[in-house]
């Protein structure tokens, strides 16, 4: 018997909202961190047994294998419509969608804007890694000008491929959303702030506030063809100027 | 009902807003209240916005097969384009009711019965210029022989609901004017 272990205080453990599973995410990917943050918030707010999540199509399509909560799997881009249908039927349950930039800002932009415009009472966690991860690193709506991807091999040319979409700023033009924030998981400091924003979004939802949205800038070392360390450095250097961090919209009163 | 077999079909056509859809519903609804089988089909789509509108009503003592009628037994026409469109389709020997205030050319067929009446003038005379449809409807019911005046009055109050009871009287006045006209005017064969 290990008496030493008995005497030790447990200060860190897997959140109850996560299963004991090995994820399929690449080393240095931001999904694992963001999953953990969402799971910790779910635990802390005591909503694991009531919350319903909607998984996207993209790298996180299998997130229901990692979260130990009731979940939908959506089709590509339709998570906000599914969350709308569910929340309208069960307004008593907390609901969130978890979507990548292709899913949310390309094919699902209409569903996103209209759910936001209607002020649907769910939370969206938006992972922006400036690329299509699952399909192998193609250009996303959020790909930076000049950024090389599989479908912009010489760098995104704004003459032919236009400019990246700043989703937070765009949604902030709408009247209904109550909370819109952009965070990053590129360093320990930013991870802590990211958790605060995610927690605030969920808390606002629980208080009945309309549409809450957190964009998470997230590294994709594999498709960026970098080491994890290079990826977080590239993110902060290149994505921060294009996608400034902070609360874009927040209620005056609330949390 | 006296057990006699009943079947009749009518197309009602004119400008949107002239109340043709309404008198079609009134016919079908009043006949339904009498225990008859009825169908009412409107034309639908952009033509409803101020263009020509029409509806087809079938009333029968038996379950109704086709609600779509190529050759109706009667025709109510409230404008020139409708006469153009539907006169050729009226069954031989059928009844054509014309609002003579708005239809400016005569019917061309000689194998049908035409009842032309100044429905707008009559409507103004009874005090409701919008009730020209009810004048023509009065003539149709007088010649159609399926509904009584009471059937129509009951149907009208059913469709209007209680809040519009005040409209009932003037509409029935218009209806009566049409009945009188149909009884007085000889049908031109």
């Amino acid at each position, binding site marked *: 018997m290990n008496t030493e272990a008995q005497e030790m205080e447990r200060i860190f453990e897997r959140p109850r909202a996560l299963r004991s599973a090995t994820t399929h995410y690449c080393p240095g990917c931001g999904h694992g961190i963001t999953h953990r943050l969402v799971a910790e918030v779910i635990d802390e707010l005591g909503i694991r047994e*009531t919350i319903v999540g909607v998984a996207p199509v993209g790298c996180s399509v*299998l997130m229901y294998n990692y979260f130990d909560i*009731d979940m939908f799997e959506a089709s590509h881009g339709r998570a*906000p419509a599914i969350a709308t249908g569910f929340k309208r039927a069960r307004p008593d349950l907390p609901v969130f969608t978890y979507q990548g930039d292709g899913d949310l800002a390309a094919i699902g932009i209409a569903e996103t804007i209209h759910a936001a415009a209607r002020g649907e009472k769910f939370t969206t966690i938006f992972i922006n890694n400036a690329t299509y991860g699952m399909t192998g690193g193609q250009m996303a709506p959020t790909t930076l000008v000049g950024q090389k991807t599989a479908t912009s091999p010489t760098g995104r040319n704004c003459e032919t491929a236009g400019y990246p979409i700043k989703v937070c700023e765009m949604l902030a033009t709408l009247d209904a959303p109550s909370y819109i924030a952009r965070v990053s998981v590129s360093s320990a400091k930013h991870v802590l702030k990211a958790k605060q924003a995610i927690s605030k979004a969920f808390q606002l939802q629980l208080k009945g506030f309309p549409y809450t949205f957190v964009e998470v800038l997230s590294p994709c070392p594999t498709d960026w063809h970098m080491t994890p360390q290079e990826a977080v450095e590239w993110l902060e250097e290149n994505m921060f100027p294009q996608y400034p961090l902070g609360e874009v919209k927040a209620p005056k009163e609330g949390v | 009902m006296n057990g006699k077999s009943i079947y009749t079909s009518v197309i009602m056509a004119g400008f949107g807003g002239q109340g043709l859809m309404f008198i079609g519903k009134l016919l079908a609804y009043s006949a339904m209240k009498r225990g008859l089988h009825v169908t009412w089909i409107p034309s639908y789509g952009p033509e409803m916005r101020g263009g020509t509108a029409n509806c087809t009503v079938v009333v029968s003592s038996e379950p109704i097969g086709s609600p779509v009628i190529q050759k109706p037994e009667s025709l109510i026409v409230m404008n020139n384009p409708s006469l153009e469109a539907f006169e050729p389709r009226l069954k031989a020997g059928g009844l054509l009711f014309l609002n003579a205030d708005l239809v400016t050319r005569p019917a061309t067929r000689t194998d049908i019965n035409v009842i032309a009446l100044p429905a707008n003038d009559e409507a103004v005379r009874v005090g409701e210029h919008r009730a020209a449809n009810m004048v023509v409807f009065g003539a149709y019911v007088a010649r159609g022989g399926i509904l009584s005046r009471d059937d129509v009055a009951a149907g009208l109050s059913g469709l209007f609901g209680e809040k519009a009871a005040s409209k009932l009287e003037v509409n029935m006045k218009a209806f009566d004017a049409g009945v009188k006209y149909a009884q007085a005017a000889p049908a031109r064969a």
Partner: protein
Amino acid sequence: MEKLFMTGNEAIAEAAVRAGCRYYFGYPITPQNEIPEYMVKRLPEVGGVFLQAESEIASIFMVYGAAGSGARVMTSSASPGISLKQEGISYIAAAELPCVIVNMMRGGPGLGGIQPSQSDYFQATKGGGHGDYHLFVLAPATVQEAADLCLEAFDIADRYRNPVMILGDGVLGQMMEPVSFQDRRPAADLPEKTWALTGTKGRAANVVKTLNLDPSVLEKHNLKLQEKYKRMAKEEVRVECYQVDDAEIVIAAYGTVARIAKTAIQALREKGIKAGLVRPITLYPFPYKTFADIAPKVRKILTVEMSLGQMVEDVRLAVGDKTEVCFFGRCGGIVPGYEEIVVEVEKLTAKVAR
């Protein structure tokens, strides 16, 4: 029972509410707009929710979301809008979510027209979206039948965990007829919705999903769906046979065309031609056996559709070489008159006489 005077669209909406449907998601399109316009007033009276979505695609996924909660839910549209919904319909069929989808067909292809048509038969009965799946398809011919079948549709959807389509056309949707509503509670023997998402309290987590990356798992799932379709075919086929006992020629038609055919049959019989009608009420599962049984007893079967020949393929499949199957169709929004059907039958019987 009190008779109300309603359009087919309104009757379907009222029947849905009486069947316990509390959620409606849709997008405007002619000729079915009376359904959302009725629902927006009616659903709040019973504590339900009406929501006009930003698109047909969004509305069908709102159905997916609400159905995933275990609620009774409906959407409606017309042909081009139903095409847009196909993505979601495939997902709903794959996830086995019960719901009711109304298609008031109009002329196609493309934007087509707004007048009545039956040219979405293939889409409705053969799948429509991607993958091996079927909707349960009901084809009412009268406003009363539209109401009755809609009341049942929600039970059927729950019983088989399958989307049910009510397939009508512009005539059925726009036409007013007398209708009375039975008071109907959901059947007592419906399976419990243990799969629904309600939060995990007291049980393991549920997932509503359609992705199966392992081919052997996906094949198994498909085989399970096929078993369900076979069960429907065994238990739920509905068909009306009208004056077929002594018929020499049988008309095969559904929905609006079937009732027009009845008028044609009366006219034909007055002329001494023994005609009858076989009217499939379920288009999927299709009444193959009824046609197969009747085929040897009749000289010809004339399939009449408001399309250029879709259901006729199922009739031919049922009949094989037991009798000749002929076809007459109008399309593009033209509703055939009974007189046209009479002429077609007369042509066929004249050939028989020769």
